[in-house]
């Protein structure tokens, strides 16, 4: 073998080296990234919700008159008118089994005009903080004086029978009422009162929550501080989201009629924060589950962490 035989071999190797080291990087550079097979679907925004159809003001309606005692001892008569179509629509609506969803009843858009009107008549806005407090207490007393009637009693319903969507539960019947239903029936149990009171106070702009006990439901009203001079008890409040919600009882109103033939009630209303006189042990010493009215479930973790790209990545 002569040198002349080796020269082509070396030349070939040199060409390979040049191609590998110079031509390839120049031509290929960034390797082509294969496009994956299936196409990534695009984001599909949700369809807008249909707007609620308002109930007509005209037409058949239930008119209910409430006689109640105000904070100053004065007896008032308040009339409430609920369109029959609205009432029937509520009666035909299935109830939510999950009590955490019952705040939806208090905020029902269809009931809002009725509640706003009623709340403003009982607690007119006049900008005076003292009057505002009296108005708030009157609203509470108004609801507390709605007669208590358990869900399993047919007397709780103007039809004299259990509604179609009353739900049998372990210890009886469960039928949380929309505020308009409680007003038409003129009766209700603890959750009905708490829901009605929440709807009325919300219509006036108060921040409220439902307080859920194993055997009771009440209301929490947000206050930065509440130390009434007359209180012989320590006002009870619960923390939620860094805010104080004071206990408000919606049902129990001590006493009865002033006389057998009088419609006037006597008794002792429950002031804000009073749990010491409560008839439920769970209220006296327990801590309720708090059901916010205005709340959207949200995850605590939702931030996507950007990952560093490998060298050569786009």
């Amino acid at each position, binding site marked *: *073998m*002569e*040198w002349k035989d080796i020269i082509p071999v070396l030349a070939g190797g040199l060409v390979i*080296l040049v191609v590998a080291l110079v031509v390839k990087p120049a031509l290929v550079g960034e390797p082509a990234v294969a496009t994956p097979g299936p196409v990534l679907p695009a984001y599909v925004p949700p369809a807008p919700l249909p707007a609620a159809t308002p109930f007509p003001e005209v037409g058949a309606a239930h008119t209910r008159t409430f006689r109640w005692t105000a904070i100053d001892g004065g007896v008032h008569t308040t009339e409430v008118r609920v369109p029959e179509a609205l009432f029937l629509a509520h009666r035909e609506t299935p109830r*939510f089994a999950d009590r955490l969803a019952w705040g939806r009843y208090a905020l029902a858009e269809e009931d809002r005009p009725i509640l706003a009107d009623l709340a403003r008549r009982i607690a007119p806005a006049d900008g005076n903080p003292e009057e505002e407090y009296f108005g708030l207490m009157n609203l509470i007393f108004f609801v507390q004086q709605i007669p208590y009637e358990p869900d399993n009693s047919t007397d709780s319903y103007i039809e004299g029978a259990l509604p179609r969507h009353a739900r049998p539960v372990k210890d009886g019947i469960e039928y949380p009422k929309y505020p308009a239903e409680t007003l038409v029936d003129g009766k209700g149990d603890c959750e009905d009162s708490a829901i009605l009171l929440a709807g009325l106070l919300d219509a006036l702009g108060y921040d409220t929550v439902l307080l859920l006990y194993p055997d009771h439901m009440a209301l929490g009203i947000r206050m930065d501080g509440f130390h009434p001079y007359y209180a012989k008890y320590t006002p009870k409040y619960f923390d939620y989201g860094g805010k104080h919600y004071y206990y408000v009882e919606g049902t129990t109103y001590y006493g009865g009629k002033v006389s057998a033939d009088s419609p006037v009630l006597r008794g002792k209303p429950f002031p804000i924060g009073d749990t010491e006189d409560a008839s439920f042990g769970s209220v006296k010493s327990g801590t309720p589950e708090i059901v916010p009215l205005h709340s*959207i*479930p949200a995850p605590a973790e*939702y931030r996507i962490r950007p*990952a560093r790209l*490998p060298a050569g990545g786009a």
Partner: protein
Amino acid sequence: MALAIPKIPDVLRLPKIAVDRRRALTAAGAVAAVIAVAFIGWTLHVGWTEDRQVAAFGGHVAASEADLARVSAKISSCISSRPEYPSVAESDTAMREFAAIAEYGRVVTAYHRQVIGADEVPEAYTGVQSAYIRALDHLNRAFSLWSSAAAAYDAKAYAAAKDHLAGADRAWKDYVAAIGDYDRELRIAEEGGEIPPA
């Protein structure tokens, strides 16, 4: 009796090789050159293939990150635009948007998990790939649980919605941990060396 060794015929004898030093060196040089060229060529080929695999993997991760950034922007917009005191209608609208984003996130993570899972990567990058796939899996699970939460909310099963969101939060924490593993594995793959304790 004395044994006589027969003579080997000439044809069976090995021919005498006349060793020419110059030619032998030339032949050895040629063989060495061929081996060197083959070795260098093979090394270059392997290096090029690995570079190409890493670049393809990096391109897929980049595409995934770009899509995840879009998902992230939608999430941030959805969460930050929620009113402090929403009405029922506003809550329902927000949850419908949340459900749509959850579904989008679920599809995006499933898609990129499939793409990146099919990538062939050099051995040094298998840990990187595995950590990133793990991160996508956790994220996919979190988005699936978001979807379940939105469905539960729609059915007015708020307690179930809360439970699903709590599960999603746990999956999200696992995702964050997996992204941490990915960064660590990537640093090791690019810088070489031993894996430090997590």
